[in-house]
């Protein structure tokens, strides 16, 4: 009779027909799905914005004291963290785990800066610009603009936060020696997620802030 251990021990002994790990295919398919969720939100944004009566404010001027420059800087930080993620993988493949860990730390810090700046931006917008969101005085403002802004950037911010936690788990695994050259695909898969989040941000940034 099969033992319990036999069932739990990695049952994925089947041939890898495509020559890549299951995890990679899983992540790619997950990202297709996630892209479609963003597509839904972006479609909502597009419909609400490009209707004749939308009265959309000019986003470039609407962000007030913090300005769009802060978000542009934030975008730069996020793209840099994507670059450092590439270094994590390449150093891991070369076996320089010390350097790989440092790059991973840089990636995590980049993600944290991004979420932090976004939190600052949200606080500013909600308290100063859209006080009705927190029960304050009603102002004459385009609620569709606020809704799509908050839902799109909020959903993206959630992704970055998840990514930071994901990277942190990988970092701890690297520190304990559980993740290294022999299983670099784990880092590759985390990298796929992180690059995807950055890519989506380019879209969100372009749509919500620039156009």
């Amino acid at each position, binding site marked *: 009779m099969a033992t319990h251990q036999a069932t739990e021990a990695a049952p994925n002994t089947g041939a890898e027909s495509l020559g890549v790990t299951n995890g990679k295919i899983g992540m790619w*398919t997950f990202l297709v799905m996630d892209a479609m969720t963003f597509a839904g939100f972006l479609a*909502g944004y597009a419909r609400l914005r490009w209707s004749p009566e939308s009265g959309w404010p000019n986003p470039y001027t609407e962000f007030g004291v913090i300005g769009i420059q802060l978000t542009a800087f934030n975008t730069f930080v996020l793209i840099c963290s994507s670059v450092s993620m590439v270094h994590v993988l390449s150093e891991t493949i070369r076996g320089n785990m010390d350097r790989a860990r440092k790059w991973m730390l840089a990636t995590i810090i980049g993600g944290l800066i991004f979420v932090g700046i976004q939190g600052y931006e949200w606080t500013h917008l909600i308290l100063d610009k859209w006080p009705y969101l927190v029960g304050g005085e009603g102002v004459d403002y385009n609620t569709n603009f606020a809704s*799509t802004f908050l839902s799109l950037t909020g959903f993206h911010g959630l992704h970055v936060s998840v990514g930071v936690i994901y990277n942190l788990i990988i970092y701890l695994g690297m520190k304990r020696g559980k993740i290294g050259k022999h299983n670099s695909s784990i880092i590759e898969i985390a990298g796929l997620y992180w690059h995807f989040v950055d890519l989506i941000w380019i879209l969100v940034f372009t749509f919500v802030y620039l156009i």
Partner: protein
Amino acid sequence: MGTHSKYGYLSPLTDKASKSALHYVKEWFYTTDAKRIGVMYTLFGLMMGFLGGVLSILIRLELVQAGPDFMNAEFYATLPGMHASLMIFFFIIPLFTGVGNFIVPVQVGAPDMAFPKLNLVGFWLLPPAALMAISSYFLTAPGFGWTGYPPLSNSIYSPQLGADLWIMAVIIVGTSSTMAAVNFLATVFNMRCKNMTFFQMPLFTWSVVVTSFLILASTPVLTSALLMLQLERTFPGAFQFFAPEGGGDPILYQHLFWFYSHPAVYIMILPGFGMINEIIPTFSRKPIFGYAVMAWSMAAIAVLGFVVWAHHMFTTGIALKVRVGFMFLTMLIAVPTGIKIFSWLATLWGGSLKFDTPMLYSLGFLAMFTIGGLSGVVLASVPVDIELHDTYYVVAHIHYVLVAGSVMTIFAGLYYWFPKMTGRMYNEMLGKVHFWLTAIFINVTFFGMHYMGVKGMPRRYFDYDPQFEMLNVVSSVGSFVLFAAQFIWVFNFLWSLKYGKEVGKNPWKDGTHLEWHTTSPPQHHNFPEPPVWTPIVRHHGPHREADELTEPVPAE
């Protein structure tokens, strides 16, 4: 891997000494074996199907005669939506996922799914979601139908907590089904046994692949729409997506909703097509006619399924040019579907047919799904749809597609694989009685609805004009018998589980795919050794003898 018991994956995993009933239950609830998870999915789906059936019986009870009979209008308004939600989100879709979980890894010669733990999580998301949806009956259930159109579903018109629960439940179900889709794709892409190319895969596996792509691309869009709706409900005034008074667009919701829910009808029928693709060749003792065309037509249906959603919105005032475009694309779907129907007929042609219960269900499906398909072409036409929109004609159409289509294929599949899943044969006599009662009373229940719809009886209404009374009585009586007939099947399967004749590897003698080359029921990890597929040469002679069947060669 240990030795194999005759109970296969059903047998307890640990030694008898430490075995207790609770332990055995835990072994099932924490299992990562795709077959056990598949069985749990199936049982869960069937329970939800039963509940959905009970709700439909309440609907039909109320509609036996004109005027209020058993319930008030508020309660009645919750029934159609909850019936549809249970049947669609909790019965048909999980049931196909369940059968897929059981059969797909075996058919591709894999020991398990690619992500066994994700598989278990995906299943365990469903019971809480179902509890949330059903518990809304104790907290004033939502009365806005299964579509949840705003503004009816926003916080002004549906302030009750039940509506929030329903929305969150549907989001969770969507998450569960995307998890399953990711898992199926990784399994099929990457864990096929040696020598099995994509075009050597069984067509049921093909159908699950195509369905998984549909789920991946469409379900998240529904999730985004429901998240927006929930934000608008929770923070009214702050979030304005759909409320017209806040500058929102209720039609936007419909676009997003149908971008999922139109492909969802294919999510609910393509695995059924896949099952029919397995059953008809087996019981015709011929290979499937046009294997590659069958696979490509499923892909074509999936692609077309994404570009026809607006045919649900012909009456919302979208531009006529847009409507005509969607009408054309919708009618185009009849082409790949027709290809499939004719390929099945060509498979039957000249075969030496055996009329066991799965085959009867397949033939019943062929006949009745065609009716559903034809009424779909009728509804696709813009002027006709404007006339028939939200009448019982639509109800008739959807039930011919989902009951005479999906549910018949589910029965076909469950009878077909019952010996494989349990190691025992069901009672053929009872199976045939079940089939004939089901097939006849599906028509008694739903056929008259075409006529009611054409005459103008609106759907989801609590009351109706007395001229429709006779047809409603027929329909209600039909539904009662249809519901009662299902207990024959429940009895048959329960009885056979204990007293059915034990079967060998290939009880139908003509099953060609890998699941018929492993023990019944299959062991944990499906095969004693990784199988090697011997490609089938699909020739179309009069029939194939059982001994001509290809067998997988054990690996060296």
